[in-house]
Every structure is written in C-alpha cells, then in structure tokens.
C-alpha cells in the first residue's frame, strides 16, 4: 500500500481558500477571490484524480477486492477509553469516488461562478463560502469516524445555510436558508441519537471498528445491540433508522424534503453544487458508508427502500406541476436520490446481491454530473432571463446554443436514454429492484417515465415553445460559464461507460454486470413515450397542458402545491409549536415561575404591612406586648417544653 497522506491536501486547499478569503477577502481580494478559489479547487481536483488513479489502478485490488486504507487518523476529542472522535482519512472505493465527484463538480461550479457571480458585492464571501462547503463535503466523504461524519455533516449544513442565504437582503432567501438548516438539523437529531446508540453498544465511534463489531453475529456488541430493544424494535434497528433519518434530512427524502425546493433561493451555481451533486447525496453516502451494518437489519433496509421509492415517486409527480425551473430540478433531484436510496435498500452486502449498492453509487456518480449540468444550464438561462419562471422563457435555443445542447444532453441522461450516463446507472437500479422487489420495480419504472416527461417538459418549455421575447443584445454568458457546461456535457455522455461495477461495490470485489436489452426495453420504451408526450404538449405553445391540468382538477392543485407539505409544516410550527408550546412556556416563565419569585417578595411585603399594627406607637401597647411575650415564654417553657 502506498502512502495516501497527501490526500489531506484535497480538503485543506479549499479550507485555506475559505480562511484566506473569509478573513481578508473583503479587503484585499474583492476581484481576485474567484481566481484564488478556483485555483485551489483545481489543485484539489487534480490531486483527487491522482488519488483515484492511484487507488483504482496503481494499487488496485488485493485478493480480488478493493480494500480500505486509513491514510491518516488523529484522536481529536477523546470521550472515554475507546470512544473518541477521530479525525482521519479513509480511502475506499466510495470515498475516492466521492472525492472525485465533489472536487470536480465543485471546480466546475467555481469556474461557472466566475462569470455568473461577477460584480456581486460579496464576491469574495461567496467564494469563501464555496471553499468552506467544499472543505466540509470533502471532509465528510473522507471520514473515518462516525462522529467525524456528523461533524462535517453539520458544517456542510451550515455552509449550505450560508450559501442559500447569500442574498441576505431577500427575505425569501433568509427564510429558505433558515428552513433548510432547521429541517436538516431536525434530521440530524436523529442521526446524533443514532450515533449515540451505536457508539454506546459498540463501544467505539470508529466506523471500521464499528462495522467490524456489529457485523459479526457472535460478537458481544452485536448480541447486546440486537437484544436491547425499545417499542418492539431492537436497538440496532432504532439506531439505523435514526441514522437514516439524518441521511434522509440531508438527502431530502420524504417527509423531510420540504427544504430542498426553497433552497433554490440561493445562487444557482450553489444549487448545482450543493443541492444537486454533492450535499444532498450525503445521506446516500452515509447509508452506503454504514451499509454493512444496514445489511444486518432488514427492517432498517426496508425503511430505506420504501422511503426512497416513495420519495422518488412523489417528487416526480410534483415535478410535473412546478413552474419554477429550479424547483423542477430540485424535485427531480429528490426523485433521483430516492432512486439511489431504494437501490441501497434492496441491496445486500455480498456478491451478486450487492448489485443495488453498486447501482446506487453508480447513479450517484452519474447523477452528479448531469444534475449539476442541468443546474448550471438553468443558471445560464436565469442569468439571461432574470427569472426562474417557465412562462418567462421559451425559444431560447437560438440565443444560447451551448446551453441548449448541454441541457438536452443532461435531459437525455436523466431520462435514461442510452447511451447517456443516466441510462446505465438507472438500468442497474431497476435491475436490482426487479430482482428484489417487484413493487419497487413498478414504482421505479413509472417514476422513470415521469422523469422523462417532466424533464422534457422543461426542456421544451425553455428552449422551444414560444418565440423568445429576448433580444440579441443578450449574450449567453462568459467563456468561464460555457466551459464548465461543455466539460460537464462531455462527462455526462462519457461517464456511463466507466466500468463502475468493477470499481465500486459493496464488498470491494468486482461485480459482473451486463446490459440486458430485453430488460432495458421496458424502461427505455416508456421513457421515449414520455418524451414524445412532452414534445407533443410543450414543443409548441398550446392549451394542452392547461386542459390536462384542468381535467385533473383538485388533484393537480394538490400536486402543484406539493401535497401541502409546506403548509403542514407551517401549521405544525406556526400553529402548534409556537403558540401551543413556545408561547405557553414563555408565559409560564414570566408569570408563573417568575411570578412565584415575585410573589414571594410581594407576600413578604404584604405580611410586613399586615403586622405593622404591632408597632402602634402607643407605649402601653408596647408594654402589653412585652408582658405577652413574657407570658408566652413562660407558658412555653413551663408547660410545653418543660
């Protein structure tokens, strides 16, 4: 094994960029901040690619499988013997894969932002935040310790918060950033408690040790965690479900997805980076990271499966009705992540049954490219149109040819049209689902068709439909914005051909996969039909969509309002938590708890007023009291206490 310690540079370079720009950016790097950030990321990306090359191809497999390498580990905070937060770097197929994805997409976004964010007042801050996010995300994927995951998890959350709230003067942006943070925080609570349970029973927080201890059926830790239970489920189930809740929060799974559409308030490149390619898949990554443990518990896996599948379907349905292009993309992200989730859910740890795992990772990988591409394209469009609404667009294909082509490529990829990247990964997922669970397969299939439909609805609405209302004076964007689009488009076409099954699998060993044309027939066919329907409805401006919407009536309204999930949450917070918990508590505190304290004081004063008559000012009264006192003492001591 060779030394991977240099990998530490990959996260540290963005961190350095963050610190530099964060502390001095406003003063000294107002213009050059973008270049500095991009350069740092470029270096990181190169190192990441080098590392990937070294890991997969230079060091290669040992005994037929890729092994985990702990490149570096340092006890960061020791709790008690064996239980500590370690900072370290783990090298294994998924972490290396994620390294590449994160640094690469981040680089693209950095580059794109050079043009997109040009002239912003807080340009340096923007790049600082980007650096922070990239650092956190890289730290997250490299974690050796479950608490390290949590730590970077939170950092990722906060950088997401900062970036969503980048346009801090816009109240909607502020609200969205708050929402994103709080909802994910809520989910993180589950994650945290899950960690506590896992840590308590296994006596360690180190992921590999933990996996080791909890995957052998004879180990005392395993026996302890499976025998301990609460409400009919074993501690292991609880722990895993709780951890999954954490993942679901970040990955916008139902019912914790509500923050994702709103998060689109942030700058679009940020959406591309965080809310499409990287952060949102952290949940998937988390489950994958702990997959050996998950695979020990069927209940937890079922939860993952059904939540994933339902989210995928739900998001796809909602996406069909949205009119804000970024929101459509957001729901599509949610839907695709649902795919990844249920793919994990239907997987097993070893051998052929591990197909789902591989597929999930593969989809994660491809999705990162085409989804970030979609977002960047959307960014380019918005940059031109200054609106997110579909109705403000149309016929842009002539005005922005590069964007048009890139967007089309990405749409084809996400729809799963061969030979674009999405096709390969989606095929594997469908196959895995087909093998394990027919119901899930059906849902997945339907969702795939829906995906194709709403993506092409978007495509046609933006680039075809009515003639552009925009003049030629508008340009597509700077070169720095086009280059990433081109690169990503190329990737979207290319990455599907990477022999992923050989590289990234649950047990590290290569998996034999092949494209079965017969099996592919159904999904691809459905997809094409869906595309055709979309073209029919949206290529030209006509009343079709409206008619359909009208005919669906109430259902359409419910869907377009996202099944009233936001309203439900609002109801819970504004109508239940604030007035029914917060207000009473605040009231109780002021009036009852504090009131008691004040009452003590006022009662004392009252008593003081009540007994003032004793001091009547009449000297005979004093004498009477005197004699009374003597008598009292006499009676007390002669008769009462002897």
């Amino acid at each position, binding site marked *: 094994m060779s030394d991977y310690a240099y990998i530490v540079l990959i996260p540290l370079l963005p961190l350095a960029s963050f610190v530099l720009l964060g502390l001095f950016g406003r003063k000294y790097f107002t213009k050059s901040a973008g270049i500095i950030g991009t350069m740092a990321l470029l270096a990181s990306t190169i190192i990441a690619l080098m590392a990937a090359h070294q890991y997969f191809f230079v060091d290669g497999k040992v005994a037929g499988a890729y092994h985990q390498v702990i490149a570096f580990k340092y006890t960061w905070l020791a709790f008690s013997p064996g239980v500590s937060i370690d900072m370290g770097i783990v090298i294994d197929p998924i972490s290396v894969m994620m390294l590449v994805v994160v640094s690469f997409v981040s680089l693209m976004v950095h580059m794109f932002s050079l043009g997109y964010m040009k002239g912003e007042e807080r340009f340096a801050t923007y790049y600082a935040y980007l650096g922070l996010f990239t650092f956190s995300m890289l730290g997250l994927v490299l974690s050796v310790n479950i608490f390290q995951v949590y730590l970077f998890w939170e950092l990722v959350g906060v950088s997401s918060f900062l970036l969503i709230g980048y346009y801090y003067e816009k109240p909607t942006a502020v609200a969205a950033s708050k929402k994103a943070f709080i909802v994910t925080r809520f989910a993180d609570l589950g994650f945290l408690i899950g960690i506590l349970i896992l840590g308590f029973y296994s006596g360690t927080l180190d992921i590999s040790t933990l996996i080791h201890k909890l995957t052998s059926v004879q180990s005392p830790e395993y026996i302890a965690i499976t025998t301990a239970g609460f409400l009919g489920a074993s501690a292991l189930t609880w722990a895993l479900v709780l951890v999954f809740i954490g993942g679901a929060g970040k990955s916008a799974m139902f019912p914790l997805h509500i923050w994702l559409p709103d998060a689109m308030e942030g700058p679009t490149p940020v959406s591309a980076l965080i809310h499409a390619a990287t952060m949102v898949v952290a949940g998937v990554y988390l489950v994958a990271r702990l997959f050996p443990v998950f695979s020990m518990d069927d209940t937890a896996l079922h939860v993952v499966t059904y939540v994933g599948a339902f989210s995928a379907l739900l998001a796809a349905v909602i996406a069909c009705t949205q009119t804000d292009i970024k929101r459509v993309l957001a729901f599509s992200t949610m839907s695709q992540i649902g795919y990844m989730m249920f793919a994990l859910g239907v997987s097993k740890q070893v051998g052929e049954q591990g197909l789902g795992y591989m597929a999930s990772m593969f989809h994660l990988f491809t999705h990162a490219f085409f989804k970030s591409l979609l977002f960047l394209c959307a960014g380019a469009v918005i940059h031109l149109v200054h609106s997110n609404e579909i109705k403000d667009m149309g016929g842009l294909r002539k005005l922005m040819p590069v964007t048009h082509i890139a967007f089309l490529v990405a749409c084809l990829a996400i729809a799963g049209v061969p030979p674009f990247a999405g096709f390969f990964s989606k095929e594997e997922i469908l196959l895995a689902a087909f093998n394990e669970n027919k119901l899930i397969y059906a849902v997945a299939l339907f969702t795939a068709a829906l995906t194709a439909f709403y993506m092409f609805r978007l495509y046609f609405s933006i680039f075809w439909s009515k003639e552009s209302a925009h003049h030629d004076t508008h340009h597509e964007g700077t070169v720095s914005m086009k280059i990433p689009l081109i690169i990503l488009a190329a990737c979207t076409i290319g990455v599907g051909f990477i022999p992923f099954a050989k590289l990234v699998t649950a047990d590290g060993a290569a998996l034999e996969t092949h494209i079965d044309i017969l099996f592919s027939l159904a999904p691809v066919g459905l997809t094409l039909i869906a595309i055709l329907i979309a073209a029919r409805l949206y290529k030209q401006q006509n009343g079709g969509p409206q008619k359909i919407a009208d005919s669906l009536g109430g259902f359409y309204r419910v869907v377009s309002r996202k099944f009233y999930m936001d309203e439900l949450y609002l109801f819970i917070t504004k109508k239940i938590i604030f007035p029914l918990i917060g207000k009473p508590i605040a009231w109780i505190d002021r009036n009852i708890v504090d009131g008691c304290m004040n009452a003590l004081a006022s009662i004392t004063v009252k008593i003081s007023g009540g007994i003032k008559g004793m001091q009547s000012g009449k000297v*005979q009264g004093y004498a*009477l009291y005197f*004699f*009374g006192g003597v*008598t009292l003492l*006499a009676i007390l001591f002669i008769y009462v206490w002897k």
Partner: protein
Amino acid sequence: MNAHAIIFYLISAFLLGTGILSVTTKKIFRSAIWLLFSLVGIASLYFWMEVEFVAAVQIIVYVGGIVILIIFSIFLTQQSGKEMPGPGLLRTVFSLLAVLFGAGFCCMLINEYGFTQLPGNQFSVAVADIGTQMLSTAEHGFVLPFEVVSMLLLGAMIGCIVIAMKSKEAKNKGVLENEQEAVGTVISSQQNNTL
C-alpha cells in the same frame, strides 16, 4: 388567727384597696393621694415585718419625695382638677385579662413552690448594721452599689436639669427650680438615710 395576723390582713386590704383606687380614679389628684395612702400602707407593712428602717426610708423617700414630686408635676401640667378620660373598653378588657391571668399565674407558681419558712427566725435589722455593711468593702459590703448609685443619681440629676430647663424663656423659670429642688430632696434624703 391572732391580732398580728389580723393586722396583716387589714394592712394588706388597705394597701391593695388604695392601690386599686389609685389606678382607677378618674381625678388625677385623687389618684396621687390614693397612691400616697397605698405607699403608707406598704410602709406599715414594713413596720409589721419589723423592718423599721426600710419603713422609715419608704415614708421619707416615697411619701416625702416621690409623691410630692408627682403632685408638683400634676400642678405643673395643670391637670389636677380635670377628669381623665377612661380607657377604651377593649383596652380595659385586654388589660384586665392580662393582669388577672398574670396575677393568677404568679400566685399559682408561688403556691406551687411552697415556701417553707425557717422555724427559728433570727431576723433583726439594726440601723448600725445597715450603715456599716453599706460602706464595707468586704464580703457582704455594699459600698460598690452605693457608689454606683451615687453616680447614677448624679447622672439623673444632670439629665433632669437639662431636660426640664426651659431655655431663655423666663416664664417657666419656676419649673426648673422646683425640679432641681425636688431632685435635690430625693438625693439628699437618700444620702442621709444611708449615712
């Protein structure tokens, strides 16, 4: 019950009766006179107990000094003839209750304790004894209290003078003199007696 005992009860009845009258009479001057009688009654009780010296002092100091002082002050405050307002009913009841209770309680305690007198009573109070003991520094000498009391009288006298002296206003000059005289009487009588 022999004559001696009868005398005791008579004296007792007298001094208690006059005492009660003294604290209940409405006219202040009469009250002072009843007090005088009561004090005389006490003096006669001392005579009855054969402590003539104390009886004499009692008459000289109380009857000759304090009561006169009191009567003077009654004149000075020009209230001799007026009927004093009586106490409120509530006050009377309370006081009566307290006093009756107190008296009953004390008498009960006295009764309960059951004092036993010594059979052979050798009690005699010679004036000479009192004189020597008063000025003796030995074991049962009372020179220290004697001196202490003289300082106390000095202090009291000065205090009286300052307080009762009406500065600058000649109108009440007489008061001052009377005061000083009165106090002087008391003090000199005391000194005389003990020497």
